[in-house]
């Protein structure tokens, strides 16, 4: 039953199951009155797709990313990651799923100080039980893939913003996840550096990765093959441009 690739188990996943499927997601936060951040969102991301999620602030982008990444549970509706229904999983199982199938890139890079770039990237496999030596080897590979093969031994404080985000991306792809989720990855960077980060993500996409990028930058969104725009917790439009 177990697929040998990547260690992720696709127990009941058909070979053609989408990388991510959201079915009628509603997310309410308690309050007076309760805030409905997501209102019946359904979305399907196939393997190998690269999707931009855009929308003004408060439109529910970040909430959507948290739910896509199983960091938060929806009030109702189902999230299927790689064909696995996450609603029936325990908190520990969700952690394991994140550790094996999903990679995260955040606006503020969350690199641990006091560790080199290589160690930070290797941390991406810390909770998978992979031995340190192997982790470091894979971390070196991942840093090569984001074009930082020459900065392995540097501390986060010695890296520029763009370099830091590349390290964070390397950490997010070290375990070759089914799905890479990026939450405003260029939010803290100037436009030239931003373009570099987007190029890195495009390169990963070209190599087969499935990527969802949340952004408020219309130019970036327009440059990606598919664009989902959110407004007041609803999908307003879902556009795909033909390749090329």
């Amino acid at each position, binding site marked *: *039953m177990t697929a040998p690739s990547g*260690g992720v*188990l696709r*127990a*009941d996943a058909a070979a053609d199951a989408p990388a991510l499927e959201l079915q009628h997601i509603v997310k309410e936060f308690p309050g007076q009155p309760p805030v409905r951040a997501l209102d019946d969102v359904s979305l399907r991301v196939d393997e190998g797709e690269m999707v931009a999620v855009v929308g003004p602030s408060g439109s529910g982008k970040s909430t959507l990313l*948290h739910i896509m*990444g199983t*960091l*938060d549970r929806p009030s109702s509706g189902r999230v299927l990651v790689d064909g*696995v*229904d996450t609603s*029936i*999983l325990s*908190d*520990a*199982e969700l*952690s*394991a*799923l*994140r*550790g*094996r199938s*999903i990679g*995260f890139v*955040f606006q*503020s890079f*969350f690199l*641990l*100080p*006091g*560790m080199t770039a290589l160690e930070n990237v290797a*941390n*991406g496999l*810390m*909770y*998978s*039980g992979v*031995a*340190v030596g192997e982790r470091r080897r894979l971390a070196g590979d991942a840093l090569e893939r984001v074009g930082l093969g020459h900065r392995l031994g540097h501390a986060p404080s010695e890296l520029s913003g763009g370099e830091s985000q590349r390290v964070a991306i390397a*950490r997010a792809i070290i375990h070759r996840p089914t799905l890479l989720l990026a939450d405003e990855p260029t939010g803290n960077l100037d436009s030239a550096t931003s373009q570099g980060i987007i190029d890195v993500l495009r390169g990963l996409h070209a190599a087969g990765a499935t990527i969802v990028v949340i952004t408020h930058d219309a130019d970036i969104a327009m440059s990606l093959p598919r664009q989902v725009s959110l407004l007041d917790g609803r999908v307003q439009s879902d556009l795909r441009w033909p390749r090329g």
Partner: protein
Amino acid sequence: MADRPHIEPSRLRFGDVLRAGTSGLRTRTVRAVLSAVGVAIGIASLVGVLGLSESSKSDLLDQIARLGTNLLIVEASEGFGAGNAALPVEAVGMVSRVGTVENVSAISRLDAAVYRNDLVPEGETRGISVIAADETLLETLNGAVAAGNFERALANDYPTVVLGAVAAQRLGIDNVTTGVAVWLGEQWVEVTGILEPFALAADLDRAAMIGYSAAAEYFDGDDVPTSIYVRVDTDWVSQTRDVLPATVDPQNPEEVAVSRPSDALEAQAAAEQAFNTLFLGLGAVALIVGGIGIANVMVIGVMERRGEIGLRRSIGATRRHIRQQFLTESLLLAGLGGVAGVVVGVVVTAGYAGLQGWRIIVPPLAVAGGLLAALAIGVVAGLYPAMRAARMSPTEALRSE
């Protein structure tokens, strides 16, 4: 879809538990060291107090063992009857016939005074008494000669005097070269010996001693003993103590008092023990305060590292892994303090005991107990911050910046 999908669980290797547990300490070294200092002080004082008390007690017990706990002193009790209570002349012989008695020596107080020379006004005796003694006294009391000779001096028929340690000092005599004499009972008497202090009979340190035969001849001495020193078979001390009054004075046993001078030293040992309890209490308070310090630093650390917690949750850490990480950190902090405290405690014990010339004893129980106490404090101090870190939802943690 009824089949539950199998997700291979997250796994944190033991080395990685340590790696995660030290990640906070490496970047916040000063804070880590400072928070460990509190526990170190507590453990150091516990180990130091226990070590020093053991070392000093062993010294006292050595002293008691050296002097023997089997010495009894027989004297006439005071205040009973007409005040003329005295031990019978035949008391010494009676006591020596008791089967459990090993050595007996008696002294008799003389009605005489001793002065440095004949010019000192009468009555200024400086608290020095004059007694008659025999040559067995030194052996019975485990005494020692500082200068000159004891037995030969007391066996003389003509008066020569041996001075107790304090008496010699007060008279200003520190050697027994020929010709050193004191004015004793209206005549010059040659000093032929000076004694070391007695551990169990301090009043003899303030005495000038003359042989019995010379005392009878020159100073109107009689054989009525003032004090009788009795060495007893170690296994029969209290039984012997009970029979001595009736042995000494069958008619009036209630007029005979028997004391055991080693009781005083044992009381001193007990008193030091009571003092230790106080210091142990202070050490325990320091330990608790140190634990609170660690808990405080941990709580702050958890608040500051919300982002790290969120990140770890996103790369596969379960709540248990987060709890483990912060508990490990707290345990390491307290353990570090504990080890440093034990080292300081041992060094202080060794230094002070060495200075005092005591045997250096560090009770293994104190070391083990100190380390265990530190770890226990670490667990208690880390529990709340770790739970708090683990309870944080990933989204809440990631929202921090």
